[in-house]
């Protein structure tokens, strides 16, 4: 087995433009949120996000404008946290900047 420990700053550099990224967790539960927040500090674009029930970590990528597509069954934060504000903002209005592929 190979040692794979690395700092957050090195791990975020593995992600490149146009990649399809699956975010773990569900709603507000056990999301890789700090990793997502670290991605917003990188000059990334055209990311695609997928998951059965992506939550807050995926929402950050929609809010930052770095992701342009989301493939999902359900995308929300659930309970008191309600709708995913970043996804909503990205796909609302006359000129949405992201595509939501529900049921894909």
């Amino acid at each position, binding site marked *: *087995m*190979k*040692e*794979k*420990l*690395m*700092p*957050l*700053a*090195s*791990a975020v550099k*593995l*992600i*490149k433009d146009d*990649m*399809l*990224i*699956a*975010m*773990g*967790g*569900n709603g*507000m*539960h*056990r*999301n*890789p*949120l*700090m*990793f*997502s*927040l*670290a991605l*917003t*500090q990188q000059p990334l674009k055209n990311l695609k996000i*997928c*998951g*059965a*029930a992506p*939550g*807050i*970590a995926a929402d*950050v990528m929609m*809010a*930052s404008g770095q992701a342009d597509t989301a*493939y999902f069954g359900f995308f929300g934060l659930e309970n*008191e*946290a309600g709708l995913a*504000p*970043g996804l909503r*903002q990205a796909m609302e209005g006359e000129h949405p900047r992201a595509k939501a*592929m529900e*049921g*894909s």
Partner: protein
Amino acid sequence: MAQRPEFFQVVKSPFDGTEVVCVKALVPDYSIIHVQEADIYGNCRILGPNYQDALLARAAKKTIITTERIVGTYRMQEEPKLTTIPHMLVEAVVELPGGAGHGICWPEHPEVDWGTHKQYQKAVKANEVPQFAAKMLEGRL
């Protein structure tokens, strides 16, 4: 099915000719998963619900793990069936306590930090998520 031909197609079964629906698989370049326990090789334990995370790690070409804590490999060897994600699926392990941010990660973070979540909602409305992120990450990047 008619709305999403790029994902759903009907084909004839090679076994008996009946019509079956094929669903195109998504193959993520990376899955990113936050876990409670991982060793330095990427063997991971999730405490509480797994959701779809074991599947995401297997569907993706490679997985990046962030973990609340690094544990000794002997823990995985003692109870191998509790390993949700095995080392060969993992490319990177980041020790990142509080990696679920203001969200929930049982047992250390049993509730959402609603004050911070309100700040996030405001940041989304103001198009200031990278600035919000920089504040959350201070001293951690």
